[in-house]
């Protein structure tokens, strides 16, 4: 859990709009979340809930129209694009996407992709390679794959590379957007194990997913995003075993479980009716 309780990320009343004038619509509203050092927070939301927008706003890839974002105690809400780039270069916050094939240069051997963030920071090539390899070992990637191109790796191996690349700058916070959604069981478990280790090592994680089930095993806290608002934030166990908001209840009741006891069809129908009323 949290090492000293100091938040690495503080988001207060975040608001994001897309579109101009008459087409302007609100995507996020009154979103507040604080993430302590070494804490893992699961952000759950379905298509169109604004979960990726939330991640992008925290990384300065989308401009917030209201609210405050503090990274490591520093207010970044009014940062210029130039300041954002400098901040990202420092690598305090890193990002892992669902499909690493899109974020890894297809023409670059993975080892090169991995050390790039370090070279940008001015680390010498020899040291960068050494550190890069240490992280590839940490995500349990076979050393003979280091020279391969991303296209020559399996989906699970690529996602390991993406996690290792996020780690090389020793970030305080990693935001993972659907990191295991595209993976099969064995690889999913592999990545989740690595995430658990990172959490235990004190790295804060924001684990974004449409599937409550996939974050349940690693998250300390869970925030449920529905139509651009956090409708329920709390301890993972509490939210999953006793959700209060109707949407959170529907979400828990819809997740397929082996014991299929989460909710009956009638209960789900009642919750849907409640939400659409």
């Amino acid at each position, binding site marked *: 859990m949290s090492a000293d309780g100091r938040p690495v990320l503080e988001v207060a009343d975040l608001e994001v709009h897309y579109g101009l004038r008459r087409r302007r619509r609100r995507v996020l509203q009154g979103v507040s979340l604080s993430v302590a050092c070494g804490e893992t927070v699961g952000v759950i939301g*379905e*298509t169109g809930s604004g979960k990726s927008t939330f991640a992008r706003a925290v990384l300065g890839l989308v401009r917030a129209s209201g609210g405050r974002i503090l990274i490591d105690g520093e207010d970044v809400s009014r940062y210029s694009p130039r300041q954002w780039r400098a901040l990202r270069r420092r690598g305090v916050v890193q990002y892992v996407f669902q499909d690493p094939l899109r974020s890894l240069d297809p023409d670059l051997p993975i080892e090169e992709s991995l050390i790039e963030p370090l070279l940008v920071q001015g680390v010498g090539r020899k040291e960068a390679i050494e550190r890069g390899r240490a992280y590839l070992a940490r995500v349990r990637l076979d050393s003979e794959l280091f020279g391969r191109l991303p296209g020559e790796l399996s989906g699970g191996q690529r996602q390991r590379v993406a996690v290792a690349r996020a780690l090389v700058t020793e970030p305080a916070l990693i935001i993972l957007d659907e990191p295991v959604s595209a993976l*099969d*069981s*064995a690889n*999913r*478990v592999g990545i*989740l194990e690595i995430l658990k280790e990172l959490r235990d090592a004190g790295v804060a994680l924001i684990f974004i997913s*449409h*599937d*409550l*089930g*996939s974050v*349940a*095993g*690693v998250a300390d806290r869970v925030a449920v995003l529905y139509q651009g608002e956090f409708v329920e934030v709390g301890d*993972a*166990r509490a939210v*999953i*075993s006793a959700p209060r908001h109707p949407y959170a209840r*529907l*979400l*828990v*009741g*819809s*997740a*397929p*479980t*082996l*014991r*299929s*006891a*989460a909710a009956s*069809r009638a209960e*789900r*129908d009642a919750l*849907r009716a409640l939400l659409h009323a």
Partner: protein
Amino acid sequence: MTRTRSNATVTATVPAARPADPPAAHSPAVDVPAVDPPAVGSGDPPAAQAAVLAVRDVRIRDDVNDREIVHGVSFELRPGRAVGIVGESGSGKTLTCRAILGILPAHFAVAGGSIEIAGRDIARLTTPQWTDLRGSTISAVFQDPASYLNPSLKVGVQIAEVIQVKSGLRRRDARRRALELLTAVHLRDPELVYDQYTYELSGGMLQRVLIATAIAADPQVLIADEATTALDVTVQAEILDLLADLRERRGLALVVVSHDLAVVAQVCDEVLVMRAGEVVEHGATADVLYHPRHEYTRLLIAEHEQYGLDRYLADTDTDTGAGGGGEQRKELDGVR
């Protein structure tokens, strides 16, 4: 795996007319809903009957490198029953479905075993016989509904087309029947959806449209191959609820294919676990969940227990020390 041909195409391009006489081992009771056109919401699932689908030791070979890809799959499916196939990509689950539908990709062939649909051995079917069978006896929905619908035609018109071709109804009646089907798949505003195009509908709505098309000619068997994989969890639950509903109300037999054991467990009476073309586990759902014999099945279960919701839901139950499933859970602990 290439998904070149679609169910919609398969059903939509077949010539008219139902099979004139019912096939040999075709139980008369099964035919009742098919004779009675709008059978929506009517008829109880028929009791114990002959299998509507019998797959016996089916082997599939890749002719290009002369390799066997699927090494013997067997199961039987009776009306109103559901069998699930679990496995990751490359396990052969989709190839098995395609073999059953007679739409294996180019250089793949059934190299051994037999498949019977409503008592007819499909190996001996001629092309016209196949077109009679598809849609009206066996039908399917796949993962990406948008790629099985024509983006330049209203979705309602595409359902009506299948009905006109398969049931020989006139245009106006086909439209009425299509609207009934859209209602049956719980679309909120069938009249509106009928006149919409694919880009105007969400993934969950499109999958409902596809299911409506697939059941338009009252098939006895519906294959759902990763039909809910691309959908949000709450929408997935809606579609699974819909399949359970069709099964109860129409006696539709289901083959549910998924990489997620929990999805299959929720809907099916019987589960096959496939890995690298091999069926490593096959049994009643409860047996597979509580007495898994193969290591791979245990891995699938462990994933849910350690990393899924089951972890908390199970813990809550254990804490209270109560609940009807206690005994089964103890058995499960033993397995762990």
